[in-house]
């Protein structure tokens, strides 16, 4: 192995080849990449410089994702990796890295939304006779009903997001570093960012 992170092996700014005058040092070491995949959780602990720890996630299946405009965060299952700006290979092998665009399970967010706003989210057009979900039609106390009425006008959701809720999968981006802290956390894509990535994904297919 012997991955090192020194710059003594590189040519200098002027182009001169630098002579080797000392061996590799431990403080210059590098380690093998984690290449976190999707699967049942498997995390290895690494002792690093100073006695501290890094958690190298080798397999992950869920993460903590936040819905920015609603300011809530829920733990959700990760379904698949959909786009990676740096490398298509990482998409094909479903590798979780910071900045990867993934699809996550939408149910915790939908449940929160329906409990908070008492409005359906991502439901297909109902046929006659189908009962409303328990969340929507349950009996609420007057106090709670008043709170819900005051939130009514905030309950609008962007149409692009609403479509994603009907399929049950949301696009999100990983913002933590799974190979360093052992978690895949991030946020749900919205607005311009969402449009940008949806366009990229479509043009790939």
């Amino acid at each position, binding site marked *: 192995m012997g991955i090192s992170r020194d710059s003594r092996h590189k040519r200098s*700014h002027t182009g001169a080849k630098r002579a080797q005058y000392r061996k590799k040092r431990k403080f210059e070491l590098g380690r093998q990449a984690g290449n976190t995949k999707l699967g049942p959780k498997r995390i290895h602990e690494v002792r690093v410089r100073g006695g501290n720890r890094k958690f190298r996630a080798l397999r992950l299946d869920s993460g903590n994702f936040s819905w*920015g*405009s*609603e300011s809530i965060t829920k733990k959700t299952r990760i379904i698949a990796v959909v786009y990676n700006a740096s490398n298509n290979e990482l998409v094909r092998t479903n590798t979780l890295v910071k*900045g990867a665009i993934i699809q996550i399970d939408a149910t915790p967010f939908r449940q929160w939304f329906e409990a908070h706003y008492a409005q359906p989210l991502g439901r297909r057009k109902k046929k006659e006779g189908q009962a409303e979900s328990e969340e929507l039609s349950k009996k609420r106390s007057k106090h709670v009903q008043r709170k819900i009425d005051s939130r009514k*006008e905030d309950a609008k959701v962007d149409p692009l997001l609403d479509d994603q809720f009907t399929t049950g999968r949301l696009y999100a981006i990983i913002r933590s570093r799974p190979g360093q802290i052992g978690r895949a956390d991030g946020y749900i894509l919205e607005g*311009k*960012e969402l449009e*940008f*990535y949806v366009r990229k994904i479509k043009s790939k297919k």
Partner: protein
Amino acid sequence: MSEQVEKAFQKQVGIFQNPKASKKVKAKNLRWYKDVGLGFKTPKEAIEGHYIDKKCPWTGEVSIRGRILTGVVVSVKMKRTIIVRREYLHYVTKYNRYEKRHKNLAAHLSPAFVGVSPGDIVTVGQCRPLSKTVRFNVLKVQKRIQKGPKQFAKF
């Protein structure tokens, strides 16, 4: 917006761009910028512009500290970075005379500065390493003064 030329979405990390439509915040250009200190004026283009540059001293995540140097621009051919030439005199004791020497410096040029061309005088400030050779960031540009009869300059 034509600043999205890369494969990943370019934005300033840390400013949230998607508040709900019903909320009253209506800033058309949600942009974060800072003052680099040491008396350097932050360019208007940095505040009003739309470019995204994480290595810009005003709209990015670098801080200016350490040395502040000046030099002459030699080349502007790289993407967002320039080569600055600093001349100095070195004393040779045996002959009691000086000799001319120069050093070239790679400095990051923020998109806030438009129209920088070779020959301009530039002030650069030290920041953390931004790439293999770049440790400086351009803070101020002074156009080259045309001495004598005006020569043909490309517009």
